């Protein structure tokens, strides 16, 4: 419910929000997250603790707002950000530099731990070399993969000074995002509506598979892979459309779902509850896609207050066999979609979910934390 969301205005436009990963077998919800800012003269990477639950007020409603633990200057816009482990965050910059920051928890400070200057760059006609924005980063400790506007793919190792592997001109258009498919394979999306699989073991500088949206070449901005069913991949496009792909078959998406009215900036399957998916957009909305509930008895279209909830008609029989995300027949499909932000105007640039907690950041210079997502 909206009442469980606490907001904090932070005087900088937020481009990325990421929960710190929990140690294996942790039972408590996440308590720390990182944010990155953009478009400021002085951009920052910041670490926040979510308000202390001990601060619940007399009426039980109050939850402390996020508290800034520490921050550090970052050269250029923060384009993407991923935790490498519990202490280290990899940050992609609009200057093309990739930096690993370490969060020292004993004295609450941040420091630059490792830096690859101009990991992404353009060679212009005068052969001078300028940084190109690094648009995406993904980590699988100790490996770090970055992509950029230069169409380049870099593979770094956290402890090595030089790139382990670089694919120059991997893509003729801008690469917008990257994620791991398997430990040796990555997925990238680009600005002409293509989804590509790259096998990093192969020395060939070509993708092992190319999928694409038909016709319109609508740029894809984000990609995420189903945590359990590795063949299920979700992408979000410039037109706000959510595409679900089955990379075992075909070259086109299995289903195209009308979603936002502008660029979808991020898409995330819930890491432990992948029947739930979350997307956010330039149009200022954040949607929760839920294929889990049994809602046969509910009406097919329902509008409640500020939220609009839509149910498709349904059939649950094959649920366990076929992934709910792959049934593209709307008459068999069932999905509940909820906009979690009514009345928002400026872009929601980033979101992250872990356990019952959601964090998102906006161009309205605010960060929001919801700790009872499924309440």
């Amino acid at each position, binding site marked *: 419910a909206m009442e469980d969301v606490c907001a904090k205005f932070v005087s900088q436009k937020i481009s990325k929000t990421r929960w710190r990963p929990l140690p294996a077998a942790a039972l408590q919800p996440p308590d720390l997250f990182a944010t990155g800012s953009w*478009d400021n003269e002085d951009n920052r990477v910041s670490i926040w603790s979510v308000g202390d639950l001990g601060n619940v007020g007399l009426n039980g409603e109050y939850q402390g707002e996020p508290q800034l633990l520490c921050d550090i200057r970052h050269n250029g816009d923060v*384009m993407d950000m991923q935790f490498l482990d519990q202490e280290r965050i990899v940050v992609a910059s609009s200057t093309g530099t990739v930096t690993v920051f370490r969060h020292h928890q004993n004295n609450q400070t941040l420091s630059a731990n490792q830096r690859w200057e101009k990991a992404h760059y353009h060679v212009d006609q005068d052969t001078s070399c*300028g940084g190109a924005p690094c648009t995406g980063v993904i980590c699988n400790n100790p490996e770090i993969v970055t992509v950029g506007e230069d*169409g380049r793919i870099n593979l770094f190792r956290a402890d090595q000074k030089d790139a382990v592997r670089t694919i120059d001109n991997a*893509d003729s258009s801008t690469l917008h995002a990257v994620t791991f498919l398997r430990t040796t394979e990555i997925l990238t999306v680009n600005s002409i509506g293509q989804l590509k699989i790259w096998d990093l073991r192969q020395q060939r500088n070509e993708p092992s598979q190319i999928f694409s949206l038909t016709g319109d*070449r609508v740029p894809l901005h984000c990609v995420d892979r189903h945590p359990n069913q590795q063949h299920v991949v979700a992408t979000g496009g410039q037109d706000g459309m959510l595409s679900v792909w089955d990379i075992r078959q075909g070259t086109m998406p299995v289903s195209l779902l009308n979603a936002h009215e502008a660029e979808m900036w991020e898409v995330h399957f819930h890491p432990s509850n992948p029947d739930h998916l979350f997307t956010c957009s330039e149009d200022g909305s954040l949607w929760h896609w839920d294929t889990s509930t049994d809602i046969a008895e509910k009406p097919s279209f329902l509008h409640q207050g500020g939220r609009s909830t839509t149910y498709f008609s349904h059939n649950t029989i094959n649920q366990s066999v076929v992934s709910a995300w792959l049934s593209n027949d709307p008459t068999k499909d069932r999905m509940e979609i909820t906009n979690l932000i009514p009345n928002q105007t400026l872009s929601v640039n980033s979101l992250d979910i872990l356990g019952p907690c959601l964090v998102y950041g906006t161009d309205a210079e*605010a960060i929001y934390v919801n700790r009872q997502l499924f309440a």
Partner: protein
Amino acid sequence: VVPGADPSARQLCFAWGPAEVLVCETLFGRRGGCPFRGEAAPGRALSPGALTGRVAGTGEGGPSSSRVFVVRKDQDIYIQTLRKLFNESHGIFIGLQRSEEELAGKSRKAQLVQVSKNYRSVIRACMEDMHQAAISTRDPALHSQYSTQVSILSAMELIWNLCEILFVEAAAAGPLLLRLLDWVRLHVCDVDNMVREVLSSENPSKHELFWKVASIVDVFVLQGRMDEARHLLAKEASANPTSVNMYKILDDLMKKMPMPNLGNTQTLTEMELKWQHWHEECQRYLQDGTFASNSHMESICKILLGDEDAILEKKELMTTWYHFLVTRLLYSHPTVKPMELRMDLFLGGESSPEPLDTILMAAFEFEMHQVIKECSIALSNWWFVAHLTDLLDHCKLLQSYNLYFGSNMREFLLLEYASGLFSHHSLWQLGVDYFDHCPEYGRVYLELHIERIPLNTEQKALKVLRICEQRQMHEQVRSICKIMAMKALRNNRLGSALSWSIRAKDAAFATLISDRFLKDYCERGCFSDLDLIDNLGPSMLLSDRLTFLGKYREFHRLYGEKRFSEAAKLLLMLMTAHIAPCSFWMTLLTDALPLLEQKEVIFSAEQTYELMRCLEDLTAGKLDKQKFQDDDVETMKVEMLRLALARNLARVIVKEGTLEGS
């Protein structure tokens, strides 16, 4: 006044920018009046910023030459803590614009009052943050800067609150006074500190304590906080057992004092009647000398009667003239009507009034435009006047007031505020929505400002593009895409450059890039960026050259897939339909060579004739133009082609002949 510049020593010249003024010292002789002085008077009636702006940067020139100052019109835009104010109020502003006026009468008013309260709570929240910042900083300069901000914000809130009572809510007689009392209580918070001090002070001398308590009682009475005053009086009474009776009577009077109430349970006449009775009762007690033996109680009774001198005696407890005004109204005319306020204005005529006084005075006189004008001059930001004016405009209080240049005051102030936002490296996004709600000039302003946003990443460009596309600003869409395409081209990113020009539907640029692709192909013998060219789809039709590029690549694919007859057909079509540029025909004909040499006959007789005609057209054209530039390689190619064509024709005649015969 520009710090550092000395207009008496050197002339200043200046140039207006979108939101900044460049001022530089010049060596030109004086002619007529000082140009910089003259600027404020004629052009801009409401031009505070230019005079209060801060110097953002200075550059030292040569020894005799001058420095350049950048004077920003809206300096507060650059204060970090205020960004919260700008962002949060942006949301409220949008909400207000969206709230359709379907709600009539009371509920609409309640809605507008709520909006006003929301604005005020944002101001207060900012004040709180600023206060915290002031406390926590160790730097004295910063501390004083924050403290100044706190007092400015507090003045803003004070003014806004008064405007809310008088204009937005337009409280009627009765409730009006209650609201004004609340207003005074909210902004004069010393008394609670005093109470705390007295109650916590350790072992005070009895005498001192007595006087303190007495003055607190007075403060409560002056603010109309009767219950609290009575509570303290009771304590005082218990210390003076001899005059218990007197206390009782006063307590009773205070208890009985009729107050206007907020519900509609009593009419104004009822209230006035009750008031008269009570007033007479107080008068009686005063005249029969009930309180004569206790000066404190007597003075309270006089206050209750609205005795101006008695109230004035407590001047230092009220600190401000508006407190005095409200107190006097409370005890002399509690059912004051809004329009009677101006007559009750106490014009102390002593020292020259502070800007805040002038503003509040203007509000009490219901001179809305005067309030806005004074605020524009006194405050160093446009935020306040822009939002307040917009709210008043939604209350339908500002109609029929047009400025001389055609747009109304609301729009003028919103435009100024939004322009300030646009001059900020990060807050520009907020400005867009403000321009959207300026029907007259908003669009033009947006068009001018949006093109000045620096685009350092594609993502930012996409955000700016989205803004333009949503508003059908085709010209700006084209120019942004072009900028991005040029950038990509400069960085040798042909694929990206093509994508941008396709998005801009910029045929000329697409042609240019296609030519680059073709040139690369001719030089290297292979295509770069196949993933893009193979994926052109319908966008291929944007320019002829792009169509050709796509089709030509398709030919190569068909050829690679050994679909020779399809490839041959496409190749021929590229020439006969004039899709291929003439300069490229030779390459195409050369591409036909291996097809002609295939074991199997691919080109039909008719197709072969057409190929021959193409070749002859080409060589004829060539001959006319460059007779003397004979190129051995070229002639050899032509000869080889002619030979191959002739051989193919022979084979195909035989083949077609046998086919027909059988």
